[in-house]
Each structure stands twice: as structure tokens, then as C-alpha cells.
């Protein structure tokens, strides 16, 4: 991937760089932002906030509950055992497996949604520089047009003290 990016120490500078890129006409999807910590206090850190994760977790819980109900009731009916005079399918006594599998379903659905939507397990999804681990914030443009490189370098420089790098 061809790219140009700048590394900033201060989030204010990173925000200014993002603003400058937007006013230069770059689309939100062209701008790469990478940081070593969540920066929700800044507007650029608010990007991609919307998620269906809570709904998917509830759906996962419903699948867990249904599975648990079928597991307990069908197996109890297939080999009826009288236990202490309880009904063969006893909802009170089945409540614990029902509850635990409901919660397990919700937890597993949440983790699966995280892995898929955060694109974990895939390499090189975004421009990256090891200096991000030192606390620097990477702001960049993927596949910039050659004629825009000069303007981009200027925009990055105006935003604040930062190191501008290119991926050929």
C-alpha cells in the first residue's frame, strides 16, 4: 500500500492534521488514524463509534437460552427420571443451566463481534508505524495522488510538530 503519514506526539496536533486533510478534500475513508490508546476526548477519536454489538450480544443470549431449554427439556423427556418428586421437565431446577448458557451465549457473541468488526487476526489493515507504541498518533492518507504529496506534506507540517513519512 502506498501512503503518506505523520506521527504526532500531541493529540491537538493530530486533530488539526485531520481537520486539514478534510478541508483539502480527502474523504473520511481515506484518512488513517492509529493511536496507542483510545482518545475519545478528541473528535477524530469518535470515528466509527456506532455498533450493533449490544444487539448481537442479546441475540447471542437468546440463542444460548433456546439451546439450554432444548438441551434440558428434550433430554429429560427422552429418559424420564423421577427426582425427588419434581416434574420431569422442572423449570425451577433447570433455571441454573438456562441462565448460565444464556450468559455464555451473550459473552461469546460479544467476543465474536469484536473479532469480526475490529478485524482482528488480519494483518496490515491500516498504515502502521512502530513508533505508535511510543505514544505517537499516526495520521495518514492511503494511496494519495502523486500530485497531492507536496500539499499533504505542507498540511501535516502546519498541524504541529510531527515526523512525516512515506510508504513508497
Amino acid at each position, binding site marked *: 500500500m502506498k501512503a503518506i503519514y505523520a506521527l504526532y506526539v500531541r493529540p491537538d496536533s493530530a486533530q488539526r492534521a485531520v481537520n486539514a486533510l478534510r478541508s483539502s478534500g480527502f474523504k473520511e475513508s481515506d484518512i488513517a488514524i492509529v493511536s496507542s490508546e483510545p482518545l475519545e476526548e478528541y473528535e477524530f477519536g469518535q470515528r466509527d*463509534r456506532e455498533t450493533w454489538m449490544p444487539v448481537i450480544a442479546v441475540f447471542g443470549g437468546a440463542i444460548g437460552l433456546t439451546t439450554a431449554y432444548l438441551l434440558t427439556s428434550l433430554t429429560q423427556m427422552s*429418559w424420564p427420571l423421577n427426582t425427588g418428586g419434581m416434574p420431569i421437565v422442572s423449570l425451577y431446577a433447570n433455571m441454573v443451566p438456562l441462565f448460565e448458557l444464556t450468559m455464555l451465549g451473550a459473552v461469546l457473541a460479544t467476543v465474536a463481534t469484536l473479532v469480526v468488526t475490529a478485524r482482528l487476526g488480519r494483518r496490515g489493515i491500516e498504515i502502521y508505524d512502530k513508533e505508535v507504541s511510543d*505514544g505517537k498518533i499516526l495520521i495518514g492518507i492511503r494511496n494519495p495522488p502523486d500530485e497531492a504529496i507536496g500539499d499533504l506534506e505542507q498540511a501535516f507540517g502546519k498541524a504541529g510538530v510531527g515526523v512525516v513519512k512515506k510508504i513508497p
Partner: protein
Amino acid sequence: MNPGTDKKLIEDLLHPLLHTSAKFYLAVAFFGSIVLVGFATWAYQVVNGIGVAGINSPVFWGFYLVNFVFWIGISHAGTLISAILRLCNATWRQPVTRCAEAITAFALMIGGMFPLIHLGRVWLFFWLIPYPSERALWPNFRSPLVWDFFAISTYLLASLLFLALPMIPDFALIRDKTTGLRSKIYGMLSMGWQGTPKQWHRLENAMHIMAIAILPIAISVHTVVSFDFSMAVVPGWHSTIFGPYFVTGAIFSGIAALIIAMAIIRRLLHLEEYLKPLHFQNLGKLMGTMSLLWMYFVFNERLTVWYGNESHEQGVFGAVQRGEYSPFFWTMVVLNFVIPIVILGIRRLRTITGTVVASIGIVIGMWLERFLIVVPSLSYKQLPYSWGTYTPEWPELTIMASTFAAIALLFILFAKFIPVISIWEVRVGTHPEMKAAETVAEGEAAGELV
């Protein structure tokens, strides 16, 4: 974050991972050999039969079940506290949560071993797992022991995920800070994490949802453990308050274990700058509250039994309050209530040393409480002709000692390969508004309500 501070933070927290001293090998050898002795003793018991343990008729549940309840209780330290603090957005939680979550995972692994150790024929343990046998016969889902399987395995899996997810950004940091094989391994563990806003939002969403889910799971686990007792019509067990009583005791002992672990890693890994007196004071206040709540349940439980004056209950009650088990009972009350209330109630005593002293007493006191729940009730059941006694044998004592060594060993290995304090969460704690909230918290701790 200030670049200088950030560099120091990374150096301090990655130091145990990147530098190995002789002390590490000595500690691993010491605790590892005790754990090996424990496994050898278990093997001896498997070969010679469960009769080598002290359990007998009528006391079929002895130290193994006492330790099962004790370790499951200790496991409530972490995930529950961490989840509550996350949901409350407590600003001082950042350095505490990972340590707390690790205790949960390790204590659950150890606690979950005891039902297996207690089995005479451990090779048949899979009969607890819900699968159809060749005659399509499934486990009885109405049995509290099968409930245990569901509750503990759900809690263990959820706790491991709750511990592992916030490690991903730290694994990415270690990947970038190391070279060679180490960098490759941490690279795989980081699952390609980069730190885009989308990844941060999804991680925080996931942690929030899991914190909400894990609270009722944690409460259900110890309630289900209490059901192992309260569902049986045995004097001293068949009580409606056993669920909340067990949960309270579990959180109480869990906080104590967390304070001890934090104090040890603070000293050994030189993390004084991150694990501050404020953390011990706040956890100490929480522990003091739990001490009061615990005493409230003990009083309720005892008064009801004494007032009811039913003959079959009085055998157990007399043995615990005035008879052969009374030294254990009164020691438990002193360790779990008298000493903690004095230490944690007086601001000057609520220091790191003070909270650690109170915590050591509480861990011992809570073990005694588990012993007093399990053994006297089985010794004094309804019919006096079946009364008996119990003395643990060396295999039970050895295996119990090895579990304490096991948690120490697991923690040492954990601290060697994973930062015991979440680096990215500490970074978040330095953001201006977080810093302001922490200053307020420190101010409150300095001139607080006593």
C-alpha cells in the same frame, strides 16, 4: 501523555518481561516443586484409593470440598471487582484490574480441580459433562453438582476472555518493543492489533458488555456453590440466606486476596509509582464494608437457628458455638470482623501494611468459615447414632499446601510474560479529565470520612 513519562511507564512495566533474574528461577523452582509434590500426592491417592484421605462416614466432605469453596470464593476478587469498577468508571481502577482478573482465573482453575481430586475415580469425571452416553442417558440437570459444572465453566471461560481482551493492545506494544521470536509470539497474540479508532471503540464496547454480563455470572457461581449445601436437608445447611451469605463471603475473601497479591507484586516488581496507597485505602474501605455485611449474615444465620431451638440443629450449633469447633468459630470472628473493623475503620491504620495485615487475617478467617460450614454439619446430622468426627490426613494437607504454591507459581509466570498492569489503561488514566478525577479521589482519601 508526556513522552518522558510514557517511556518510563513502558520501561517499568515491561522490565519484568524483558529481564530475568536468578530470583525468578529460584521462585519457580521452589513453588514448582511444591506443586509437583501435590500432583504426586494426588497420584498416590488415585492409585491407593480415596481411603488414604481422612474423609469417612459421616464426614464424606472434608478438606477437598472446604478448599473448593474457599478457592471459588477467592476467585470473586477479580472479575467482579474489576467489572464493578469498570461500570462505575472508577478512575483509580486502571492499575488494579488486570491483577484482580488474573487472581480470578487462577483461583477458579485451582478451585475447579478440587471436585476432581475429591472423586474416588477421577477418570470418570467426564460423566459430569453434558453429553449423551451410549444409552442416550444425559446427566441429571436437576442436580446441583451439574449446576456447578455449568456455573463454573461459564465463569471460567468468561473470566479468561475478560482477562485476555484488554491484553491485546499490550501484546501489540510488546510486539513493537521486542525482536525475533518474542516479537513473533506477541505479534500472534496481538492478532494484528493496530489501534484504529474502530478497534478501540469495539474493544471498549466489548469490555462494557462483558462487565455487565459477568456480574450476574459471578454472583450466580457462588450462589450455585451455596446450593451444593443448601439444597440438602442437613442441619446448618438448609438455609435460604446461604446464597447471599456465600456471595458476600466470596467477595470479602476475594478483596483480601487481591490486596495481598497487589502488595507482593508492588514490592517485588517495584511498582510503587503505580500501585499507590490510594488503591489499598479504597480496597480497604470496600473490604471493611464487606466485613460488616459478612457479620450481619453470620448473626442472622446463628440467631435464627438458636431461636428456633430445633433439636437436630442444636447439635451443630452447640458444637460450633461452645463445643469442639468453638475455637475455630471465635478465631474466625476475630479475624474476619474484630481485627478488620479496627484496622480499616481507623484512618491512620488503613495503610498498606494495615490493609495487608487485615487481609491475611481475613483469608485465614474465611478458610475457617468454609471449614465450619462443611465439617460440623456432616459430623452432627439429624440422628445422634450417626454422629462422627473428621481429621485430615497428610494427602489432604499436602494437596492443600500445593494449591497455595500453585497460585504463587501461576502469578509469577503471569508476571513474567504479561504486564501485570495494563499499560494502555494507565495511559488513559493520564488524560486530563481522568487525572482531575484521580486528584479528587486522592483528596478524598486524604481527608476522608472515617
